[in-house]
């Protein structure tokens, strides 16, 4: 993963030169003290984590950064002991999350950590299947725990059965207890998330690195195709929609699914059809639990709701799937065919290697990548989707409770309180419930909530520098390279981005080959997905598994964020659509309705008008 070393006098702005946007100082101060920039931070390199946090983060949502970096850091620093890197530090300014790696520079320290790493990581690799099976059990147990958290209730009088049973603990205690357990579960989930992740990526990158050296012109997407599996849970939600489409035809109720009809109307009309409609709705319930626990974002923002929370995304896809099935198209993903293609690809590249020695090394590396990569693909459904949905919805219950007691007008306002502040509001409420006096929160929070919402809206209007601080000579941190794809070459591009004349070309990662021209549909959020017509080119910030159904009707996909192994890339390859991902700026530079050309083999989007 070496990157070229060039001398550059240019650098990015220092953190201290970046100002809090006027009028948002209080909102900025709401983030915990340990993630505010300090003077010392000027000496380090930071980059904006637009991949995971492309929009300003509300102060509650910052818990995702906190829990994730806590878990990532401990996995790297203390558990697997990565030789050359510790964890990731993060800071927040104007709602934007900047991160910086902690490299290990001292060779003796690297040597010591290498020994530890091999005792730990090599054990994981050697026992991967067993540990991964165990991981799934742990993760399911965690999900069941979260699902079993009690409903929140502060009744006027403690229920009689509690009293007769001699429970001896009043309901207000369980409000705080449930809140703390909710947070505890979320922090624990992120530890599970990172238990295998870096090791999985590392094995993949080992093979990737070999391929790039042996075949200097091989595309990232080709290596990705050799490694990617097809059985991951993340494909299941989309598979379920195809199954439901087929069910609708088999039951003769497909006529109820029409473009532009809301899920509520469809469900109402199905209920009126008697048994066939009821049968389909039963199948819907089977699919929903758990497979609709997939959210319309990466799961890092509270407003990335799941299909279960909002059925419009899956229902918008059903008419298309039904039409495809009626035309006789096979609805099931052709995994056997795709697996055969993968096998052939691996064999064909193997044949091109010059020596038996290289072929033997290639075999060793692809074997390891195939064993460990399923984790990288599979964990997301459980962590970023299923669990995260449970978590944010549980916090919503606290929001509803506090809103009922006048702490703020709207349930969703709860996300404008930090997790510490939320705990204080809960203690405020439990105190007032126990004392029979009024809570203090209703006087305090509404103004703060208003101010913070206004700050987020303001921050979203301002661009933020892609990086801060002195430019490092090299980027050698495997975590940063693996998870964010940041290389020294990227930084040089960022540094010169402002100097280039306006070009009608946008460069990105060549994710799925093919060339298509068409009408761009710039979709900023999942709610806008029904604006896509057949043959449009999807232009979005990031796509994620819940968007899979739109791929049946689009001609190509372009995203701001993502790499060759991103969801958009994998699905586009499967559908045979051109895709350019990780452009950084496509949603800003491309106008809705504009004609564009997408060259997915070269990673170039051309504005045609």
């Amino acid at each position: 993963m070496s990157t070229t070393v060039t001398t550059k006098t240019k650098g990015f702005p220092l953190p201290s030169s970046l100002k809090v946007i006027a009028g948002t100082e209080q909102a900025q101060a709401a983030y915990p003290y340990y993630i505010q920039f300090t003077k010392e931070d000027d000496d380090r390199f930071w980059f904006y984590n637009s991949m995971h946090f492309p929009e300003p983060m509300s102060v509650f949502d910052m818990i995702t950064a906190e829990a994730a970096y806590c878990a990532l850091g401990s996995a790297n620093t203390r558990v697997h002991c990565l030789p050359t890197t510790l964890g990731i530090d993060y800071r927040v300014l104007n709602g934007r999350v900047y991160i910086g790696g902690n490299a290990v520079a001292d060779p003796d320290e690297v040597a010591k950590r290498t020994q530890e790493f091999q005792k730990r990581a090599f054990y994981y690799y050697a026992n991967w299947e067993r540990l991964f099976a165990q991981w799934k059990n742990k993760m399911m147990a965690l999900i069941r725990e979260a699902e079993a958290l009690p409903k929140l209730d502060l009744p006027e009088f403690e229920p009689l059965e509690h009293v007769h049973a001699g429970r001896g603990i009043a309901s207000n205690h369980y409000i705080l207890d449930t809140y703390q357990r909710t947070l505890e579960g979320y922090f624990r989930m992120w530890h599970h998330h990172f238990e295998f992740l870096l090791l999985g990526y590392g094995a993949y990158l080992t093979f990737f690195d070999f391929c790039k050296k042996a075949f200097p012109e091989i595309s990232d997407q080709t290596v990705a195709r050799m490694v990617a599996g097809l059985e991951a849970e993340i494909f299941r939600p989309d598979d379920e929609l195809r199954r439901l489409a087929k069910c609708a035809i088999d039951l003769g109720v497909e006529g109820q699914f029409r473009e532009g009809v809301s899920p509520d109307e469809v469900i109402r009309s199905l209920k009126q059809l008697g048994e066939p409609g009821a049968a389909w709705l039963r199948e819907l319930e089977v699919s929903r639990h758990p497979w609709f626990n997939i959210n319309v974002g990466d799961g890092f923002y509270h407003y990335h709701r799941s299909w279960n929370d909002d059925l419009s995304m899956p229902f918008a896809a059903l008419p298309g799937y039904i039409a495809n099935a009626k035309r006789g198209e096979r609805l099931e993903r052709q995994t056997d065919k795709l697996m055969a293609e993968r096998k052939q690809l691996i064999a064909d590249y193997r044949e091109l290697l010059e020596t038996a020695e290289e072929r033997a090394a290639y075999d060793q590396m692809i074997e390891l990548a195939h064993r460990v990569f399923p984790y990288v693909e599979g964990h997301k459904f459980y962590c970023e989707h299923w669990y995260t949905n449970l978590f944010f919805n549980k916090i919503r219950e606290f929001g509803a409770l506090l809103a009922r007691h006048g702490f703020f007008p709207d349930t969703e306002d709860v996300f404008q309180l930090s997790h510490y502040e939320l705990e204080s509001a809960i203690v405020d409420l439990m105190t007032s419930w126990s004392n029979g006096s009024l809570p203090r929160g209703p006087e305090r929070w509404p103004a703060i909530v208003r101010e913070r919402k206004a700050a987020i809206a303001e921050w979203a209007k301002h661009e933020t520098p892609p990086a801060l601080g002195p430019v490092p000579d090299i980027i050698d941190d495997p975590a940063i390279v693996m998870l964010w794809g940041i290389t020294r070459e990227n930084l040089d591009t960022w540094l010169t981005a402002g100097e280039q004349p306006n070009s009608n070309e946008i460069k990105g990662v060549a994710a799925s080959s093919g060339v298509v021209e068409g009408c761009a549909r710039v979709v900023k959020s999942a709610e806008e997905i029904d604006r896509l017509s057949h043959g449009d080119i999807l232009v979005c910030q990031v796509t994620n598994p819940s968007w899979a159904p739109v791929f049946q009707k689009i001609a190509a996909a372009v995203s701001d964020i993502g790499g060759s192994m991103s969801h958009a890339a994998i699905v586009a390859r499967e559908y045979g659509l051109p895709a350019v991902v990780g452009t950084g700026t496509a949603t800003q530079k491309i106008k809705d309705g504009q004609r564009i050309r997408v060259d997915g083999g070269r990673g170039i989007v051309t504005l045609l008008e």
Partner: protein
Amino acid sequence: MPSSEIIGWFADIGLSDRPTVGGKGGSLGELARAAIPVPPGFVVRTAAFERFLSALEKDEPIRTRVEALDENELDKILALSQQLRARLENSMLPDDVNSEILAAHAELCGEGNNPPLAVRSSATMEDAADASFAGLQDTYLWTIGTRATVRCVRSCWASLYSAASITYRRKHGLPESGVAMAVVVQAMVNARKAGVMFTRSPMTGDRSVVTIEGSWGLGSSVVGGEVTPDRFVIGKITGEISVREISDKHVQHEPAPGGGIQDVETPEEFRKVPCLSDAEIVALRDIARRVERHYGRPQDIEWAIDYAGEIHLLQSRPETVWSAKDRAPVARPAENPLQHVMKIFGGRR
């Protein structure tokens, strides 16, 4: 007519026949026998050259006089070259050689037909993977009729005695007795477009791509460097076209009236238009892959596409530049396969 000591039909010869049919002839035969589309033809074998030369040497020695030259005495080389070329070009062929060539010509062209032919030198050293001798001998395109064909065969032989060829041989101390030349006579492709391709990247040596260069008209404009060709790079395995550099192809080689070729200005509407469609690029890739598989090593190929859209290969020889490089293996198998991950996790040391 069957193949003989004098004539070798493509179907009957292969690389192992190189000593008697030359590198180009052997390669074309090899391709034809592997069912790769090459224009039909035959080789006038080295034995014909030997008989011709023996007949000439009865009057006056040739080889001993060449061998006596000093590589630095350019004047003497030029004088002898001029004299020998004139002799070879103007002397009658021995009767048996002449009649066999005429018979083969008639069979290739068909009764009463006079299609255009290509007459190409096929030296026994040329195209060997270790000699960059290629290009020192002549090729005659679009020759029409028996007389022109026989004259071109003699001219090919005479080109062995060009000043450049003689100098090259003297410089490398190559014995004249080992110098022989076969001549390929084959149907000419009326190329709509033509060019070269390599079954690896000439830039990085990557074997997973095929690099194709092409332009309008006959391929001689590309081979001779008279036009900047369009350049395409396609994944050998994936079929992804990763590079399309479309150049301004100002000139093209076309058949001249009465034989030979001429420079023609490319019509304006074609100059900056890609000379190959994606389907053609893919089809060329398929053939390149078959040829490389057949030979078991990277190839340097000349191709043409006729007005009916058919692809023809005119030449294939081993790629020499990257194949000759000593390269450390990208990786060696590790006793513990897990050690490979240290490349990623172990830092740059």
